[in-house]
């Protein structure tokens, strides 16, 4: 933690210093977003409140220095939540300094790095920790402190990452909804590595574009971002344990007209055990349906993993995305997740439309259908929810 504070402090000093030296060229923008959720299964499994208020905010500051050969980026998110203390936080998604050379980019600070091509099963994405307090599907990330060097030429790009400090996964608190069956005890974290959170993680990625193909090959070695959750019999809480993971991955997307074909595959050694994961699918878009400006996209993805314990070891998703292509950018995504092993299913819908130039409305719904008691989502079977979010941009 001290490391992060020093790094943040150094970056802020650099930033303030640059303020005085240069006639600053900068951008500042962000959003404030009140949210309201209504749960439709009454008090649910954990006897919780039927509704919840929350306030989310994001701010971005970007400044170019040195005739655009260097850049400082600050992108911070924060949330205040009525019920869940773990959803009251600030995270520096980006707090970084970048320096550009002809074929190299050097970067230091907090960053969000995404690997992969899939819409739903982002199995190879590993640099950033997931924030489960925000979202149990793991798509919301926490900023990762790192040093990186990128080299690119006509044959592709090589990225090297050194990550000197590990960010623990955030989970909802006892009052969070949805939450896991038991509370997660963030004071009883253990690691396989003796360096614990100060273990120096590293990653290497090669990516290239060849004609209609976007290809990436990567290797990661470090603390696993996914903790094992072991029940502590004395406290009846989950104690997170982070193993050491070595993961080699491949991701490919083929873009063929209205068809997108996607594949992510990995082989990883987690602790002493090796596992294999493959996830992929396709996306097809019908353009200008019924002679209108509207498009209708179909996404089908499947995920396989040879571990019994992995939640997405035999799962699929099918979704339809309707984009009206109107002035308000109206769109609706409706999808169904099916766990083919336990025969569980879950439905999601996400509607959005702009109200005016600075305000956008989001309505999300999640309905849990029949969920197998062996499935990790069983804990939130009775947490079907409607959420309304109103983002005000500045």
């Amino acid at each position, binding site marked *: 933690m001290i490391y992060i504070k020093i790094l943040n402090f150094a970056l802020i000093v650099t930033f303030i210093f640059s303020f005085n030296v240069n006639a600053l060229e900068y*951008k500042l*923008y962000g*959003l404030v977003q009140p949210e309201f959720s209504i749960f439709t299964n009454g008090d649910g499994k954990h006897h919780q409140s039927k509704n919840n208020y929350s306030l989310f905010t994001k701010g*971005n500051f*970007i400044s170019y220095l040195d005739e655009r050969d260097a850049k400082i*980026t600050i*992108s911070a998110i924060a949330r205040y939540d009525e019920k869940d203390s773990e959803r009251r936080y600030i995270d520096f*998604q980006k707090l970084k300094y*970048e320096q*550009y050379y002809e074929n190299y*980019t050097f970067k230091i600070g907090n960053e*969000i*790095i*995404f690997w992969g*091509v899939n819409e739903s099963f982002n199995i190879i994405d590993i640099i950033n920790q997931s924030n489960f307090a925000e979202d149990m599907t793991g*798509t919301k*990330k926490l900023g990762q402190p790192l040093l990186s060097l*990128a080299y*690119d030429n006509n044959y*592709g*790009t090589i990225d090297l990452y050194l990550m000197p400090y590990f960010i623990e996964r955030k989970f909802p608190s006892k009052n969070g909804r949805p939450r896991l069956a038991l509370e997660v005890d963030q004071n009883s974290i253990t690691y396989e590595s003796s360096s614990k959170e100060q273990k120096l993680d590293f990653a290497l990625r090669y*990516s290239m*574009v060849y004609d*209609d193909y*976007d290809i990436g090959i990567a290797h990661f070695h470090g603390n696993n971002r996914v903790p094992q959750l072991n029940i502590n019999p004395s406290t009846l809480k989950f104690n997170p344990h982070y193993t050491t993971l070595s993961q080699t991955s491949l991701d490919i*997307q083929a*873009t063929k*007209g*209205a*068809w*997108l074909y996607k594949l992510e595959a990995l082989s990883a050694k987690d602790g002493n055990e090796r596992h294999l994961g493959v996830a992929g699918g396709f*996306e097809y*878009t019908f*353009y*200008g349906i019924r*002679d209108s*400006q509207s*498009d209708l996209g179909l996404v089908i993805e499947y995920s396989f993993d040879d571990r019994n314990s992995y939640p997405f070891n035999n799962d699929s998703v099918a979704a339809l995305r309707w984009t009206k*292509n*109107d*002035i*308000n*950018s109206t769109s609706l995504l409706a999808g169904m997740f099916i766990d083919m092993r336990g025969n569980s299913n879950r439905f999601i819908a996400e509607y959005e439309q*702009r109200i005016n*130039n*600075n305000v*956008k409305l989001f309505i999300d719904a999640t309905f849990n259908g029949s969920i197998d008691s062996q499935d990790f989502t069983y804990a939130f079977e009775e947490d079907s929810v409607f959420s309304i979010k109103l*983002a005000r*941009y*500045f």
Partner: protein
Amino acid sequence: MNKFLLILFFVMFVNTNLLSEDNFEKGLRIAKESYESTRGYVDSESDQLMILVDPKGNEVIREISGKTLENDDPNDGDKSIIFFNKPKDVEGTVMLSHTHVNDDDDQWLYLPALGRVKRISSSNKSGSFMGSEIAFEDFSGNDYRKYEWEFIGEEEYEGEICYKLVSIPKYKNSGYTKRIGFTDKLLRPRMIEYFDRKGELLKTLYFEDYQLYNDKIWNADTFRVVNHQNKNKTIYKWINRELNVGINKKDFEKSSLLRLAD
């Protein structure tokens, strides 16, 4: 003497060629000359403002900025990057396109909320650009290689005698069956009527505010589009346009998207 004969022969040959030119050849020649008069810009940088007007007169503003790189390859298209600024919810989004003449473009989108670069399908060149009445394919509508041409006469348009040209898209996913337009004697397109897939008049594009850039290239700094079917209007303005600015070619590659994005 020999040289003289050769020149005479050449002049006769060229003249005969011009005389025997049919309306299709003439249409193609004018379109080609018009296109070529806009080439040699090397690269360009500009801010762009779009005003979308609905039939009730309500206005919505869009703001983007862009960079373009000319492609010397006679069989390929230009490259462009667009930075979205307004509406505010898309601020920070960046789109990179490698255009192709009669094939789908290559397009990547940087989505700031996800920190992710996505390769996207671009077979919807006929789709609306940011909810406007302008389609992606309209931005390269002056590329003669994308159409079959026919010259159908000369007519007065806004007080000037113009060539009247019919153009039929070669691209299979085009949203149009036909275009009819006026090109003036300085080879500048002045107005184009677009006919939809059913053959009905869809919209008219007016090229306005022509400026002579770098003493050689005429660019219309305003596109005004009137949709005759839904009665919407779009006014698209180029502001602070500069040609031949010396942009690094590498900026137009996927690997530079994260560098250029916020």
